[in-house]
């Protein structure tokens, strides 16, 4: 137990436990993973809350995120500066929301943010097209992609402004049977 104490103070661990869905053991393990990404930059001792951020390229190289087509957007969504540089706080936050213990509505909010590529607060048609593009690569022709995004808009847009707001998105996703990540 000796080395663990020097990473975080007890009250820090308690606070993290209250603010995320993780236990102190898991938080310490996360810190280990964070450190492994860049051992030279990330200090072992976090008792005085150093303000260290890791760039998005390092984070997206993690095996859990490597194959995800939305990894850049995910990292950007959780970063404070919006460019994908994650501090340890953001790192823990990201995994807390992505974990299976997070409730559905929290995930919905973050999912909305992840799919909103141009960060305008709505899923406009271009965002949807971009999603399709990332999911299928070059397999679908551009007009097919446009058809798909148009159908999505027709299905999910409730207020007719041809953009999906959070309300629309939430309404649509909460009825989906497969929405268990």
């Amino acid at each position, binding site marked *: 137990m000796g080395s663990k104490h020097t990473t975080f103070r007890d009250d820090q661990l308690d*606070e993290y436990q*209250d*603010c*995320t869905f993780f*236990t102190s053991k898991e938080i310490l393990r996360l810190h280990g993973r964070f450190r492994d990404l860049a051992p030279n930059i990330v200090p072992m001792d976090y008792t005085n809350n150093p303000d260290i951020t890791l760039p998005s390229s390092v984070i997206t190289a993690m*095996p859990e995120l*490597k*194959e*995800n*087509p939305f990894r850049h957007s995910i990292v950007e*969504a959780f970063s*404070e*500066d*919006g460019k994908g540089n994650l*501090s340890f*706080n*953001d790192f823990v*936050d990201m995994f*807390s929301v992505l974990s*299976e*213990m997070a*409730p559905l*509505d*929290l995930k919905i*909010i*973050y*999912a909305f*943010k992840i*799919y909103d590529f141009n960060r305008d*607060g709505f899923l406009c048609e271009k965002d*949807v097209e971009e*999603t*399709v593009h990332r*999911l*299928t*690569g070059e*397999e*679908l022709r551009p007009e*097919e992609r446009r*058809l*798909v995004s148009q*159908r*999505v808009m027709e*299905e*999910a847009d*409730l*207020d*007719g402004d041809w953009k999906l707001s*959070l*309300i629309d998105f*939430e*309404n*649509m*996703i*909460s*009825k989906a*049977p*497969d929405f*268990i*990540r």
Partner: protein
Amino acid sequence: MSEGERARLMEEVEEKKKLIANIRNKPWRMKRRLKHLKEAQLFVDKFEGALGKGKGRKLYAYKVMMMKVLMGLPYGSIPRKTVPREEQDTAMDYSVLTDFNEKKRNWCRTYTLHKCSSNFKTFFTLTHHGYCKYSVLFYGYYNNQRTIGFLKFRLPLSYLMVGIGTFGYSLMVVIRTMAKNADVGGGDGEDSEFTFAWKMFTSWDYLIGNAETADNKYASITTSFKESIVDEQENQKDENIHLRRFLRVLANFLITCTLGGSGYLIYFVVKRSQEFANRDDLGWYEKNELEIIMSLLGLVGPMLFETIAELEEYHPRIALKWQLGRIFALFLGNLYTFLLALFDEVNAKLEEEKDIKNASIWFMKEYFANFTANNPNETGTPPPIEPADVIRGPCWETTVGIEFVKLTISDIQVTYLTILIGDFLRALIVRFLNYCWCWDLEAGWPSYGEFDISGNVLGLVFNQGMIWMGSFYAPGLVGINVLRLLTSMYYQCWAVMACNVPHERVFKASKSNNFYMGLLLLILFLSLLPVVYTIMSLPPSFDCGPFSGKERMFDVIIETIELDLPSFLGTLFSYAANPGLIIPAILLMVLAIYYLNSVSEAYKNANNELKKKMQMARDEEKNRRNNKDSTNQVMKDLEDLLPNRSNLPPPEEKKGQKPKVKPGAAGNAVNLQKDVSLASVNPNARGPVTQAPGPRAPGPGNSRGRGQGPPPRH
């Protein structure tokens, strides 16, 4: 401190405590959460002390920890503890295969009931004149003594009851599974509201970490999109209908020819095997010709059907159903031709029996005569005849059993060989010859074999049908099949991982697996027929099997009722068997079916009405928010008729309160309206958004806000 202040303070403390408990559910940045957490904790500590509670945070922390421990949170989360939705539909029909595991267990139970100790070594060397014929695998092994052993186990009765009981049990299991599937899946609902949207946002699996899996996932998502696009376009396409119809008729004609051809081929081979039975110098091929031909037909037929079906140009799901239906017809045709041929043989054997009966009586007489002639001084009964010398009747049941076992074995052999050659060798050739071949073997023809789910499931279903039919005459067949299922599972598992690629068309014949269950039920019913027919009408062999010597097999039951059960039960049964009682019972059941049918139709109609209402309500909301006229003509007319326009709903703002739009949101864990701070780019620059965006001032000249129709008529 006054009472009011105290109460207010307590309320605030409670609020802060709730905030602390729920802070992890809020969509805030970590820093913000930490800040608020610290504030809240300080507040609670300070004022809880002041309110005299004393214990303060420690107790609270203790309570929270106890709750966590009780809910198992540190060591497991709720989602991990709840049973995963086993009926969760995935793109691959693997769930159907697990149902057969249950069947396997079922068969194991009935197998042990027979108290067999089978001779497994010899069943691979099955021939007409092999040893296996006399082993416990077959019907002929069982004696017809009424009870055997110390416990007076009634063998013949149990044989019959188990045979019929397995059918009944299987029927119950299949129907129960179908009912459960229909309940969960909600039928074949293809009319989903959000098909495209769900496909887009929920199809990616966030747990994928392997590059190859990711590639497969991309491919399957693409295919799924393409399928939906094709669906969309089908509705907008119109083609040369006459050409299509002609092609379809042609295709059906060709397929009927194929089916007829295969039926005739089997008949021909059966006739030949009857001739072979009279000869003695048969090679391995001649002995097993019938079964080999049947298995090969089962292999070649579907491929032929698929190529012919290219003419038809159906939607892939419909084409799949047609394909499965045709394969089913092929199998049925083959099986029933086989059965008819078998019946011929059985009748021939029954004729033969009569002769042998006479012959064996003569033999006995002669034996006694010889014995007394050779040993004139001995009195008393002569020793029993050596069993090997006794003339035996041609036990037709064992012959039937043998035929089924041979069929199963050759089926196994053909399947395994197909996998070996068709998948493994093919994969080897494609992988290694690719380097020195003119065209790309992997991308073009032949490429790797696809794992054909529907074909494999059908194979399992047919196999089960054969087992059902044959197990009455060859009880050991069940054991053989269990072994086969076990080995085939591992073998095919290896083959799939090593040599196959996922199927290009990732969709299912039916959403809830009921299609395959329906097939299974049909096959069960069809396999039941021959067995029941033979039990009821064919006389058992006179000297072999548990029913030997009786007129009909079910005489055992009558005997038991007469001898073993109290007499009033006998009279009861005889009354119950009266046609005058049975026919009204059947009528009653028919009426019940009709009634239940109409009730379920009524429910379906009610469902549709409700769906329509919901759709209308949603459209109305949409239109009201868009400030457009109602698109529903009826509503529009009604509106025009209304004299007083102030009956309209009160004005709403664009993103304001919409509690009715969130039927599925859980509790109040997240307050959407206030904390949509994530929508902004730099949330640290502002605090939480606590008011609805946009000015609330009504538009110019519109003194009553939005949501209105045309101005009132005067």
